[in-house]
């Protein structure tokens, strides 16, 4: 089903708060990579901006519109990556996003919402390693 069934209302409330004022939201003046992400069932549309130097993520941010799950996962993903090698994204999966959100068992219909940022950053990583 959608999220973990016994997910407490409070947990969801917490996510809604993060969704209303997400960290790392907004297009930065300085970035050297960007990529778009879509989740068509939700109608989520995001852009992700990374400043990468010597393989290290110096800054990460995003803008666009989406649901609680996609917005908060993008925000948390940005926080996670800043200061780390971009390559770390390679091995990350849905499970890692679920851990970041603090919820398990995201339903089939919402997987795309949770991984919209992950997929886009993986694309950037490919581009970076190809250069």
């Amino acid at each position, binding site marked *: *089903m959608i*999220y973990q069934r016994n997910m407490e209302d409070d947990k969801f409330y917490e996510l809604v708060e993060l969704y*209303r004022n997400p960290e790392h939201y907004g297009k930065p003046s300085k970035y050297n990579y960007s990529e778009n992400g879509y989740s068509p069932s939700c*109608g989520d549309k995001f852009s992700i901006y990374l400043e990468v130097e010597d393989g290290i993520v110096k800054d990460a941010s995003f803008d666009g*519109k989406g649901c*609680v799950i996609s917005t908060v996962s993008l925000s948390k993903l940005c926080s996670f990556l800043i200061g780390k090698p971009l390559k770390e994204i390679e091995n990350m999966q849905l499970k890692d996003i679920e851990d970041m959100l603090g919820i398990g068992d995201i339903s089939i219909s919402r997987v795309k919402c949770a991984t919209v940022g992950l997929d886009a950053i993986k694309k950037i990583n490919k581009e970076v390693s190809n250069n």
Partner: protein
Amino acid sequence: MNDMDIEKIRKDFPILSKKINGNPLIYLDNAATSQRPSIVIDGIKYFYENINANPIRSIHSLAEEATKAYNEAREKVAKFINADPEEIVFVRNATEAINLVSFSFPFKSGDRISTTYMEHHSNLLPWLRLKEKGINVDIVSISDDYELDMDYYKHLPKNTRLVAVTHASNVTGTINDAKEITRISHEQGSLVLIDAAQSIPHMPFDVKDIDADFIAFSGHKMLAPFGIGVLYIKKDIAENLKPFLTGGEMIKDVSLSKVIYENAPNLFEAGTQNVEGAYGLGLAIDYLNEIGMRNIEKYENELTKYLYERAKELKNVEVYSGKSKRFSGIFSFNVSGLHSHDTAYLLDKKGIAVRSGFHCAQPLIEERLKLDGAARASLYFYNTKGEIDAFINELNDISEKYGRR
């Protein structure tokens, strides 16, 4: 049946007694697909246990029975909308019906088609694709009350060959005056296609009265199995259409140098058809007839009125439907500051099934209404006022807790 005995009707739909997340299912996603009564579910089993064979071509007794069942289904559909059986083409769904017309209609470069801002993608994308062939597509605008710009239809641009329009919107609920649009379009020499996917399941429908040339609808929104739909093509018009798919069962005579095609409707039914689906659609129509489409319309109007009345209590909820002169049992909304998917998730926890997102009408939702999605509750005749109460109460709680004031 005169008055509708809803409790009795609900017993005909086994799924309505299902529990979802520990709560009784309140199914308010009927515009996406309806639920199915036992008569249809059991009928499919009966079909395979008693009638199954490849109809039309084989001549043994069983095939004869299958052919008879298939033809009877066509007759039932025809009668249901006051058409002749030869005017009924079985397809998979409304989407395929409209695509068929977009392929088979003899459009020429420079021709115009009109469709509208309130269409489902299925009555939009088949036409937009024709732009590649030099055909112009006009998009009729809608007012802030979700009414079509009727002035547009009064002065169709030159070379308009086809006016495509939905009878009932799956987002705003608007019921358009299909008869008047058809009348004035005909006066100006254009043919008319009506997307009746959201109307035929809910109201009496008479093709001779509306007089449109093409009418598309889906069985699964009116109690029938998935994968069976209908394209009505007015007699005389069919002759001018090109075949859609080619292959078996749509020909009279074939040699490698010359093919003589069947007449409509068989011309448009290439290959082995969804016979079980057609049979199931026939049973669904029997069931609808027994309740009576007039009763269904009346009861749904009552429910709709009740829903909109109760919705006035809601705070922090924006509504995007029900402003037009006529509208169906569709209630599109958002809790302020909450994405529609998250609203749907919260309702689902209480067993309430609503749709969320773009509803396959992205230009309407995104460009016209400037939204990133909407939640939608949509009614059918087995819903009750009690269910509406539960929905409104829950929505009230959600909007109080999460809605941004």
